[in-house]
């Protein structure tokens, strides 16, 4: 198999540009907040605790932000070099735990949810879209369409509450929260894996239901022009069997649907972040809500950065996969 070098180089370039943009945005935003963010937080903390805060904390906060009153470019360079060394600062809420430690615990759970739910929703959604497209303009198609659109009409967290209410609060079929049962030791043992799946079931179900519609409708709209195309008609006239034709049309339609992946990783990540707090799932989303409530900027920035890097890497992998799957790109290397 030929390797589409030029395509890969282009994608690497885009990856670096977007990553750099996100890192810079992360640097700029807290500095846009009027006044000194450290002081703002400090005042809030003082107010909240009734004045029982050591003033050293303000100095500490300033240090955390690199608020050395140095010129902006120096701050930026310090920020970049800290990043490069994996130094994301210290969380204010969980003081003195470094942000990187929290992320190391939380990020794997989030990634697990995102990857599982995207895979399932991609598979089911495409299958449903295929079903609708093949039976286009019949009541079957209409049912699939309406169901997908209806599911997509629920804000993710509303769906999460509905599901939590039905299956966990009232049904008591699934746990109310957590990633695995506390009575089981973590490790690659069968009870542990079962417990993880059991705990992830409701969050994954929620994300799958709310993101299914995009894949279904996308696939339906891709497969219909394919089924109407001349070469499919030609194959039909050659006497190809109906299931063969459907699978050809399906394969042709799934490729453009893959481009939707870049958006869907971001969207699913959004969904997961929201839902983790509802299902008390110990991923980055839960920490993000805590960070916002406590104006914990270092933690917020760290999560922001890690999530973006995860999404970018995910996109990059999908792009590479796409480069190998699409014959037009594969052939282009010379």
């Amino acid at each position: 198999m030929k390797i589409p070098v030029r395509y890969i180089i282009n994608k690497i370039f885009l990856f670096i540009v977007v990553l750099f943009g996100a890192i810079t945005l992360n640097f700029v935003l807290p500095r846009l907040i009027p006044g000194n963010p450290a002081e703002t937080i400090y005042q809030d903390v003082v107010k909240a605790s009734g004045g029982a805060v050591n003033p050293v904390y303000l100095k500490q906060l300033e240090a955390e932000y690199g608020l050395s009153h140095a010129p902006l470019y120096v701050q930026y360079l310090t920020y970049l070099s800290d990043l490069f060394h994996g130094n994301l600062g210290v969380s204010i809420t969980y003081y003195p735990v470094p942000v990187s430690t929290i992320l190391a615990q939380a990020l794997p759970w989030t990634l697990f949810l995102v990857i599982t739910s995207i895979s399932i929703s991609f598979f089911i959604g495409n299958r449903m879209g295929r079903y609708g497209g093949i039976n286009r303009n019949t009541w079957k198609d209409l049912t699939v369409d309406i169901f997908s659109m209806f599911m997509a009409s629920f804000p993710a967290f509303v769906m999460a509450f509905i599901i939590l209410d039905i299956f966990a609060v009232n049904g008591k079929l699934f746990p109310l929260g957590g990633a695995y049962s506390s009575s089981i030791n973590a490790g690659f043992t069968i009870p542990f894996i079962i417990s993880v799946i059991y705990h992830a079931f409701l969050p994954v179900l929620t994300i799958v239901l709310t993101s299914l519609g995009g894949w279904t409708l996308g696939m339906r709209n891709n497969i219909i022009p394919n089924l109407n195309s001349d070469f499919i008609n030609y194959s039909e006239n050659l006497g190809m069997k109906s299931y063969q034709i459907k699978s050809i049309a399906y394969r042709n339609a799934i490729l453009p649907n893959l481009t939707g992946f870049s958006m869907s990783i971001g969207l699913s990540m959004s969904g997961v972040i929201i839902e983790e707090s509802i299902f008390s799932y110990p991923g980055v989303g839960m920490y993000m809500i805590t960070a916002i409530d406590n104006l914990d900027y270092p933690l917020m920035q760290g999560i922001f950065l890690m999530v973006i890097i995860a999404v970018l890497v995910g996109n990059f992998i999908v792009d590479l996969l796409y480069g190998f799957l699409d014959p037009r790109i594969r052939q282009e290397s010379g």
Partner: protein
Amino acid sequence: MSQILRTESISKEFMVRKGLVTGNTIKALNDVNIYLEEREILALVGASGSGKSTLARILVFLYRPTSGKIFFQDQDVTKYKGRKLKKYRSDVQMVFQDPYASLDPYHTVDWHIRRPLILSHYKGNVEERIDELLEMVRLNPPSYYREKFPHQISGGQRQRVYLARALALEPKVLIADEPVSMLDVSLRIEVLDLLSSIREKLGVSIIYITHDLNTVSVISDRIYVLHDGKVVESGRTQDVIANPSDSYTRALIEAAPDPYKRL
């Protein structure tokens, strides 16, 4: 007679794919020298992929040539930009192949002819001029056609509307890129006849681009045969068709369906 338009070893390369690393190139035109005389109908003949449409688009600067020069009335126009290019384009107009694509589906016939008149700051009465142009391309009565949208008229009528649009700028050269290939055979003669009468009445020089040798002999004075981006044969139309010297031209002539030849 003097030469109104002339190319000097025009070449055009296309990059197959542009990225950070440059891709392969395809030579669409290779060292092409042609000239067009005043009041002449010149035919450019070639199969698809011969580079004839590329040449047409270079002559109106929809593409820039990779190398070579273009002279219009003995002025080097190759590097023209901005206002000078605008002036040149009003002198050298192009008629597109597909009359179903060359008219804006959201605008009326009237709009299509009015815009060039407004843009060229037409001095006289615009309304009268629109009627005049429509009559010139034999769309009678003009008032019937003016408010029609492109989808309400036939292919042959569309191509004539397009001619009226191009002629509104009073060009000196008209480049017609396969203007009749999308039309029914019965309509082709009408449009070709219209082209020759435009030459007679307005003194416009015409470059007629086609793959169809039958229509070439009907209207053109002189012919260039293009093959793989090169001119392989040129001369007076009757001479070339009667006595082709290049093997490719011979193949083209043999391939052309002769309506009078019995199978």
